[in-house]
């Protein structure tokens, strides 16, 4: 018949080889994720207690005595939500301007290129930049400065993600709505928004995830304190720095609490990303693909 498998033909060997490489890559990725989770869970879970998430550090906390990291949890929530909110206010107009006026023109290309460059800049550089700016303006490390610098970090991610969503908006959809006698506002509100909302939600939460996990930029700009911030001008703690400082401690109990803080941060990021998937799947039900 000549239809039997010829295992030693070159193309079959190449096929097998490639498949094996891909499987190894998959195992490495999944293994890394598993190891990370196992490390923070096995070391952090024993130290995780109600006190950890409900109390601020008390005297001697950093030597292993009582208290928790509520200051860092609340601080991170403030920093990341504030930064994300500010970033939305700037990214959405940029993304809409890119679509409506620049399009695929030369200038549109330049704007997208600069956003991509900004995306690639390490956060410690943002931190240093923010620090220099604060010195010039005479500001001290504060919640406000942290929010501003996180907004700057989130801005390129959010804008580029929104830009992709808006660019994928099919023109026929708007035309269909216009053909029924819609005004431009009705088209924007009832059709364009519905079509793009799931993508925009994803863009926002992607940026939020980066913002809440960033340590280097807030180290310079928001400082660290054991108190929960009561105003925008006060310094604030954050979870990534809580992890960093406690892991650097010589006391084993404190180190364990560092892992617990990492676990809390991971849980928050995981919850946000699962929540965003759920939300965008719900919103996506009616969109035109």
């Amino acid at each position, binding site marked *: 018949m000549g239809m039997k498998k010829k295992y030693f033909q070159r193309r079959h060997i190449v096929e097998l080889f490639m498949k094996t490489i891909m499987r190894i890559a998959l195992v490495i990725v999944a293994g890394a994720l598993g190891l990370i989770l196992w490390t923070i869970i096995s070391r952090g879970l024993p130290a995780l207690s109600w006190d950890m998430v409900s109390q601020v550090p008390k005297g001697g906390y950093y030597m292993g005595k009582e208290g928790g990291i509520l200051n860092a949890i609340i601080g991170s929530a403030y920093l990341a939500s504030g930064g994300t909110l500010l970033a939305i206010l700037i990214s959405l107009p940029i993304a809409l301007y890119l679509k409506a006026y620049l399009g695929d023109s030369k200038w549109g290309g330049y704007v997208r290129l600069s956003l991509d460059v900004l995306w690639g800049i390490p956060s410690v550089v943002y931190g240093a930049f923010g620090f220099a700016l604060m010195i010039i303006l005479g500001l001290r490390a504060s919640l406000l400065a942290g929010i501003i610098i996180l907004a700057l970090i989130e801005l390129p991610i959010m804008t580029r993600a929104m830009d992709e969503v808006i660019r994928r908006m*099919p023109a*026929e*959809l708007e*035309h*269909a*709505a*216009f*053909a*029924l*006698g*819609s*005004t431009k506002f*009705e088209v924007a509100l*009832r*059709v364009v928004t*519905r*079509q793009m909302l799931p993508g925009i939600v994803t863009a926002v939460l992607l940026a939020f995830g980066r913002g809440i996990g960033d340590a280097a930029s807030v180290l310079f700009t928001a400082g660290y304190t054991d108190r929960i911030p009561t105003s925008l001008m006060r310094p604030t703690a954050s979870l990534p720095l809580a992890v960093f400082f406690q892991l650097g401690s010589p006391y084993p109990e404190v180190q364990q609490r560092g892992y617990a803080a990492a676990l809390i941060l991971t849980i928050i990021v995981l919850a946000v990303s699962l929540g965003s998937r759920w939300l965008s799947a719900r919103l996506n*039900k*009616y*969109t*035109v*693909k």
Partner: protein
Amino acid sequence: MDAHIQVKNLNVYYGKQQALKNINIEIPKNQITVIMGPSGCGKTTLLKTFNRFLELLDGAQISGEVLVDGQNIYDREVDVTEVRKAVGLLAQRPSPLPMSIYDNVAYGMHIHKMKSERKEYKAAVRHYLEIAGLWEEVHKRLHDPATSLSIGQQQRLCLARGLAVEPEIILGDEPTSALDPISSQNIESRLLQLKQQYTTVIVTHTLRQAKRLADYVIYMYLGEVIEAGPAREVFTNPKHERTKQYLEGLF
């Protein structure tokens, strides 16, 4: 002839290129008018001047008049949304709105505030889905996404959606070109049923479809109207050599 649409001295330019050259035609009320001609002759451009759709394209310039019931729709005081409400469009490819089947039909009625109660909207949605011949297929899944329908069903949904805003005129821009033969036949038979109540203008590039549908025919070539008249006359006894050649399939 009882003309529903009158076109007077219409010229359209895309940049420097002239797409329509001094068009003067009349379109009869409550009949099917078919605009035909080789591709690039300006059929679709002419059609899109009837609902002021050319304004959505950058760089299209229009001069002359298009009168619907004696009113020039390009007049300064005319509201473009009212024009498009009165002149519905069935596009080349169906494009359902990003919402449920029910909401697609209700959308136009909502924005024009045509009904006051939920019950009335429900009844109207059913009515127009029935007219479009879609009710039987979708009445159990009205809240499914419109994109879950087949292409042929989507085009009938678009017909129902367009009829729901109570237009007087239906424009069809090659409305069956993306559909399979059975769906095409379905759309054609709907249009034939509806022609007593609506003035219908269809652009097509298939001669056979033109013959099946047309009461009145406009033949265009290179941006000009070469011949216009009742279908029987144009098909059996064309006055112009160009029309004759086209009908004989010479190009």
